[in-house]
């Protein structure tokens, strides 16, 4: 259950052979941390895992099924957080969560309020996002994750712009996700202080 498996992924960008046969598998209640130097293909790998970039060779399987077989079903199980937050600067945090999550599942205003309070943004709910700092915007994006009701999280540098309280929030969310049996793939250089047995690493050359 909740297995994500990458099998011999190859991807070129122009003449650059970015992914050279990347293989790994993560089970439910497990977090895979992807590390590697700048330009080693972390973002490309994560986008390939999401199905945004088709690999030129190899296969990504979710629960044993190729993700290309039924992309909608896979995407319903997936929450992706990229470099960009995917939030609108002209909307408030409340509206952003309502629209962003409402595309996938029903969500009540109380749940949104609770998620924002948990992220320490209770006082900024009514402000347009562009008036918030980059770290606060990242927190809004993180607050969105548990409401997505997704079994697989793929997070690209989730800790960027976050202060220490924000890092703690990230860890707390990740731990809750893993405790529910969820799977996570996280690209970050920061040490993830997760319980033993739930945390593995893969290094891209």
């Amino acid at each position, binding site marked *: 259950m909740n297995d994500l498996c990458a099998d011999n992924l190859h991807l*070129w*960008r*122009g*003449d650059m*052979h970015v992914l050279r046969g990347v293989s790994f598998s993560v089970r439910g209640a497990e977090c895979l941390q992807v590390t590697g130097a700048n330009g080693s293909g972390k973002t490309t790998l994560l986008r390939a895992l999401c199905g945004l970039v*088709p690999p*030129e060779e190899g296969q990504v399987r979710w629960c044993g099924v190729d993700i290309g077989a039924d992309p909608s079903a896979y995407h319903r199980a997936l929450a992706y957080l990229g470099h960009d937050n995917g939030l609108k600067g002209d909307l408030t945090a409340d509206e952003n969560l309502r629209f962003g999550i409402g595309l996938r599942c029903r969500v009540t205003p109380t749940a949104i309020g609770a998620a924002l309070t948990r992220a320490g943004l209770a006082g900024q709910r009514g402000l347009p996002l562009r008036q918030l700092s980059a770290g606060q915007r990242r927190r809004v994006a993180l607050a969105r994750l548990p409401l997505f009701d997704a079994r697989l999280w793929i997070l690209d540098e989730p800790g960027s712009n976050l202060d220490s309280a924000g890092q703690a929030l990230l860890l707390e969310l990740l731990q809750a996700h893993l405790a529910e049996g969820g799977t996570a793939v996280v690209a970050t250089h920061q040490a993830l202080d997760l319980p033993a047995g739930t945390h593995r690493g893969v290094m891209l050359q």
Partner: protein
Amino acid sequence: MAWVWFHKFGSPPHFYRLATRLTPWAAWPALLLGLAGLIGGLVLAPADYQQGDGFRIIYVHAPAAWLSLMVYVVMACTAAVGLIWRMAVAHAVAASCAPIGASFTALALATGMLWGRPMWGTYWEWDPRLTSELLLLFLYLGYMGLRNAIDDVPRADRASAVLAIVGVVNVPIIHYSVIWWNSLHQAPSVMKFGQPTMPASMLIPLLLMLAAFTLLFAALLLIRARGEVLQRERNARWMLEALERLSTHDGPPTRDGPSAKGVLVGR
């Protein structure tokens, strides 16, 4: 069985060898048929009773106009194959079609204008055929422009494939809308090319030229597609191995020298 052939055809080294082998089979008949058609059309066929010798330009114009459309269709079909079955070779063929098609379109436009000078008294008349030929040229330029604007080759392949498919759906609509537009504004133009009552002495050279141009397109496409495959596969194992064999036999590898070609062709 067909599936096996499909996959084999999709492998770049196989395609490269096949294209190399087929090229002379298209090029030589094109040359012979073209010579026969030109002699038949320019020397043997009688002058037209209305247009005099001016009509003889159809021996270039009509095949070029025919090919300008056919190349677009071939381009869209190969692009669709590349998009649906993710076949890199098909994308390479589609990419090779565009400049050839644009050249035939430009040739059809130029010969149409040359024909127009004695017939209409002006180089440019808003004749529906010439107008849709011009729009087709814009479609080709848009395709090449998009391909040129995207650096990453696989992405350029897929984006331009979508454009080619959208374009091929639109080509007939554009063509008939232009004819419709023209029919409302003026009486049908003075003379049309390719009247049904053409005598055999005029028609046979025309058919020869049509065949010659089609084969010429095939030959040009094979040559261009080979170049395209070579460029795309410059880091592939079969290419490096072929170059390595070359370097052990004939000294340092020359990527595009004649001896490199010999080895790539030979195996």
